[in-house]
């Protein structure tokens, strides 16, 4: 059985080489498909991570204070905030605490924050509200309190982001389904050439009592090789693309969002697994489709 596997693999490479043009087209088509999928995946994973991180703050309105607000003025600000109504609890967060929290969020990239000369983060209040409607009102009215520079309220962002992740999910499923079908057809047509080349052999095999799986196996091996090649190439290209992406715009995004991006190695490792599974699946399906007609007794 294993000697036969080795034989099948050699045969498959020979066939792929013999049908260079078609095999290349098939690999290219699957690679293109995988790149589209990969980009969707990268976008999804990062947006999802971001949504999860800020989700923690979702019932919180963050009120930022100007550095000129002195410690003895704080009770006044607290009173003003409480007067707006709907406040369940107030939590003061000094700029030092804020930096510490940001460092933790950045995880392994946290060291980047170590050698800042001045702390760019403001002092702030975390205002926990009882009702979402209070939060909406509070985020508007708190701006008028003297010493307040900015108010952020993440609920809207979270809602938007979950819409985006949802959209990316649906979009990638639809695009994927379409691309997978196209890939299977391309692989099937490529392997059909091999099937034609070996139709006599297939006929003889069947007279000699070969099972369907025995007849299929060399073609499935060929399909799997095509799929695996495409998976390897795609993972390689995604690696280049994603490390460039995190290099160039990564740090800026980090600073603005105060959220880490998913590390390159983790991302590519997962993509490679997904691509391989997909490539092997497409190769197998394509070859089974291409030989189906020949197996009818």
């Amino acid at each position, binding site marked *: 059985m294993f000697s*036969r596997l080795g034989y099948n693999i050699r045969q498959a490479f020979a066939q792929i080489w013999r049908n260079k043009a078609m095999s290349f087209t098939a690999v290219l088509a699957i690679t293109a498909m995988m790149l589209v999928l990969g980009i969707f995946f990268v976008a999804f994973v990062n947006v999802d991570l971001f949504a999860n991180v800020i989700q923690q703050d979702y019932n919180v309105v963050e009120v930022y204070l100007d550095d000129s607000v002195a410690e003895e003025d704080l009770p006044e600000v607290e009173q003003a905030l409480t007067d707006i109504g709907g406040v369940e609890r107030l939590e003061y967060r000094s700029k030092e605490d804020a930096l510490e929290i940001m460092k933790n969020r950045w995880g392994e990239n946290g060291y980047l924050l170590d050698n800042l000369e001045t702390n760019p983060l403001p002092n702030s209040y975390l205002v926990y509200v009882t009702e979402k409607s209070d939060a909406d009102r509070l985020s508007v009215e708190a701006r008028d309190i003297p010493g307040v520079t900015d108010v952020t309220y993440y609920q809207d962002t979270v809602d938007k982001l979950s819409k985006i992740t949802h959209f990316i999910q649906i979009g990638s499923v639809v695009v994927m389904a379409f691309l997978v079908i196209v890939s299977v057809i391309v692989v099937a047509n490529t392997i059909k050439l091999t099937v034609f080349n070996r139709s006599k*052999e297939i*006929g003889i095999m069947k*007279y*000699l*009592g070969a099972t369907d799986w025995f007849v299929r196996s060399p073609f499935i091996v060929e399909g799997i090789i095509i799929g695996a090649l495409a998976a390897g190439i795609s993972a390689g290209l995604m690696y280049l693309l994603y490390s460039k992406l995190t290099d160039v715009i990564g740090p800026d995004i980090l600073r603005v969002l105060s959220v880490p991006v998913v590390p390159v190695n983790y991302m590519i490792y997962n993509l490679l697994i997904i691509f391989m599974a997909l490539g092997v699946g497409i190769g197998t399906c394509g070859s089974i489709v291409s030989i189906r007609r020949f197996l009818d*007794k």
Partner: protein
Amino acid sequence: MILFRNVSKNFGSNVGLANASVHINKGDFVFLVGPSGAGKTTFIRLILKEIDPDKGRITLAGKDITHLSRREIPALRQKIGMVFQDFRLLEKKTVFENVAFAMEIHNAKRRDIKKQVMYVLDLVGIADKKDRYPNELSAGEQQRVGIARAIVNNPRVLICDEPTGNLDPVTAMEIMDLLDKINLRGTTILMVTHAKDIVDKMNKRVVAIENGRIVRDEEGQYGLDTEGDFYDGRDVEVDNYVF
């Protein structure tokens, strides 16, 4: 060994086989003759389960094969050797590899393959050419390879579709001698042929088909007895071969 009871097979309006009943016993050597389009190939295809009959029953080695599932067919074909008019050898494989291929398909062990292939190559008289490729062989030699491949799995039945059709008369007779030898070892042989001289010379049982009907069977009184059981003057063998 092979039992057809009132088998009919139509292809649209074409008659393939019409109410045909034939009993071929274990160890028989039977010629199947008839004009073109008579139904000879249809008969063979029914045995190999390439097609299913419309009516009637077919039994092989005691097992009803009228309707087999797709998964049962490989095991059936392993028990039937096929010899073709055009040899159907794989050009890129040597003589040895061509014959070994028939065993590899059934996952035989490498050692068994070597022993058995050499044994049958010797039997058909072509062991010395085992490393040649088909295009380096004469037509007669190629057919010997075809026969070796057909018998290498020790089939119960050998079916030959005009095995001498592409051979000159002398070579044809050599092949017939070989088939006779294989028959004497106990293998049942069913051979389709147009060659009247071979049929005459061999002096074996002849079943003639025309328009899908059995019009002549040397063994005489074939037919169904009053209970509807098949009767041809001999006992229907009880063959419990399982496959």
